């Protein structure tokens, strides 16, 4: 609705007034000036109703943003540090006002009013951003918004008791805002967005200092937002510069997570790999390479490594995604469970492919998420089944079960695209020593050994090889599986035609073999 007459001018006057106070440095740090200003706001009736407060913030935001656009669009100051610092001048003052209002709203011990005000302001800034983004399109500037979000976050994360009590709410509010502003919604803000969610203070608060990893699910959601946005662009083999920049930035962030928070990647690998395109091999390897810091990885290249003697392979990794719930439709899930229980009806196997195939168009024939979920679900059921019989996964205990029926059926019945996706879903489980890695490693080798056509062996090799020829890192489970495949004579690996189909391929195998031996 229209702003009440006079409100725009009042707001303009007040925000300019505050910026002046902020500039006289005593003002910046003195609560006296702040309380004087709040009194002025009161006098001007700004604090009378919630609606007026909302309008005040919206108008203030727009005034500050417009000021920045005027500076940024001024040819003489474009891209100069002078221009930017002028913008910071205005934006930082606005942020300081918001931070002080949040800190001092309501009773000092009452966090509710503070959090409500913060949510309101973040919502308003996000709203202004999205409107601006959709109006200006190619002329949209990220910087003002990034600066507001960053500086406000730094203000609200200062080590002050009143803020510490608020912190989890601040982080939650920020994650909600960043999810609303995710690149799929504001592509023109994607670089600032990635820098915001990977700011060192934000990462520190989200993943390190907040107790019981309470913010991990929130952060995981933001990364899924990023991967989902990147997916269609990464599916193109040839990356354009803007995509390369975002992709490279994403790799940097993932490297920090791999180094500092490997457990976070371990816990969320499934959800991440589910939205990363199959051809995005190095980034997926990076996620799959994470292993708990308490674990010492046995050297995969040691001759005669007895994987089945490792104590770690009896423990299942933590899976945060509810895999069973992602298997749909419900009838399919029901049929699957009954087949796993009774190994009947056989018709379930013959209908398997039709449940997975969603179109006939090459490249998008299959429901990849369902494929991934099916593979991991059947795999975990198989491990439980084997454990119930007081066994552990091995080449003999994984065979001749309903679970292996399903895997063998998929291997034989799917076309090359389906088989590629199926083997990819399996290869995504080859990580650090755990029961899943061990089970799927055995399953890969079993399917290779039992294959009735060379095409199957070739595609198993293709999926493993393409994950090995990419730059490091390489997941431990991938290495030990491939080493076993090429070393163990039972698989007659080097006798297959596809190993010698071209000099480059031959050379590739030899170099991988050399590095493995």
């Amino acid at each position, binding site marked *: 609705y229209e702003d009440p007459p006079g409100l725009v001018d009042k707001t303009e006057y007040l925000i300019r007034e505050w910026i002046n106070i902020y500039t006289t440095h005593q003002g910046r740090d003195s609560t006296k000036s702040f309380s004087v200003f709040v009194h002025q706001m009161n006098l001007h009736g700004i604090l009378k109703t919630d609606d007026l407060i909302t309008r005040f913030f919206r108008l203030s935001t727009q005034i500050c943003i417009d000021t920045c656009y005027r500076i940024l669009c001024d040819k003489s100051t474009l891209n100069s540090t002078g221009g930017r610092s002028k913008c910071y001048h205005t934006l930082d003052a606005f942020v300081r006002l918001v931070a002080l209002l949040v800190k001092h709203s309501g009773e000092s011990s009452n966090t509710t009013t503070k959090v409500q005000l913060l949510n309101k302001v973040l919502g308003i800034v996000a709203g202004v951003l999205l409107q601006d983004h959709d109006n200006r399109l190619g002329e949209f500037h990220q910087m003002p918004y990034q600066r507001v979000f960053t500086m406000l976050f730094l203000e609200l994360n200062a080590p002050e008791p009143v803020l510490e009590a608020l912190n989890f709410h601040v982080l939650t509010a920020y994650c909600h805002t960043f999810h609303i502003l995710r690149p799929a919604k504001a592509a023109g803000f994607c670089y600032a967005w990635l820098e915001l969610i990977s700011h060192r203070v934000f990462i520190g608060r989200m993943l390190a200092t907040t107790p019981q990893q309470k913010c991990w699910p929130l952060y995981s959601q933001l990364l899924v937002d990023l991967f989902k946005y990147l997916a269609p662009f990464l599916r193109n083999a040839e990356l354009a510069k803007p995509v390369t920049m975002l992709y490279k930035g994403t790799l940097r962030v993932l490297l920090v997570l791999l180094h500092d928070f490997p457990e976070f990647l371990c816990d969320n690998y499934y959800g991440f790999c589910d939205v990363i395109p199959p051809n995005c091999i190095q980034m997926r390897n990076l996620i799959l390479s994470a292993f708990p810091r308490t674990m010492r990885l046995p050297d995969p290249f040691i001759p005669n490594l007895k994987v089945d003697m490792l104590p770690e392979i009896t423990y299942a990794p933590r899976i945060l995604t509810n895999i069973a719930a992602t298997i749909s439709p419900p009838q399919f899930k029901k049929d699957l469970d009954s087949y796993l229980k009774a190994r009947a009806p056989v018709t379930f196997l013959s209908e398997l492919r039709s449940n997975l195939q969603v179109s006939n168009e090459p490249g998008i024939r299959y429901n990849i998420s369902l494929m991934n979920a099916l593979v991991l679900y059947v795999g975990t059921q198989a491990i439980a089944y084997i454990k119930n019989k007081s066994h552990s996964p091995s080449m003999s205990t994984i065979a001749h079960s309903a679970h292996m029926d399903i895997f063998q059926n998929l291997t034989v019945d799917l076309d*090359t695209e389906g088989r590629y996706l199926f083997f990819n879903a399996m290869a995504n489980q080859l990580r650090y020593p755990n029961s899943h890695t061990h089970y799927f490693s055995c399953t890969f080798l079993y399917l290779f050994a039992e294959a009735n056509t060379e095409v199957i062996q070739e595609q198993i090799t293709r999926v493993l090889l393409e994950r090995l020829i990419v730059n490091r890192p390489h997941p431990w489970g991938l290495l030990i599986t491939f080493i076993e495949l090429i070393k163990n004579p039972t698989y007659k690996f080097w006798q297959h035609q*596809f190993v010698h189909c071209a000099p480059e391929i031959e050379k590739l195998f030899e170099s991988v073999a050399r590095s493995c031996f």
Partner: protein
Amino acid sequence: MVSDQFGVVGLLAFLRAAESDPNLVSLALGQDLTVLGLNLNSPENLYPSFGGPWADHPCRPQDVDFHVPPEYIINHAIRNKLSPMKLNQYKEDVLFFMFYTSVGDVLQVAAAAELYSREWRYHMEEKVWITQVPGMVFLEKTASYERGTYYFFDVQSWRKVAKEFHLDYSKLEARPNL
């Protein structure tokens, strides 16, 4: 064999195409992740000094915010009272500190210029500051190089260390100018 892109031949075709078009490489063969400016062997956490997804190097010490007690934050009260910087009045220690911590900043070049005027020379290949030991006798001196014992500034131990150098004049930086 599999004839489409999902078999070994498909991989081969891709690899061949990638040889001619580096744009194709970044996803399939990936890149060397050790050159993205992150010290992956660091025993410390990376995130506290992470310079952001677009930065080729971590934050410098002075970039990282540390929350100090508010009473420490007195700069707004004394800023206008501080005397302006006069590099020619600072000791070499301070100059070296500025040079090594103000990476990519005007201060780095200003400190270098002041060190130059104090008879220090920057060896562009060794990336160290060198000065003659007073009273040093040349072992050799020609129009293009000289040999003898010099002090170089060792960043690790943060002091001057004597060492024999063969100094190619062409490897020494000329007077830095801002």
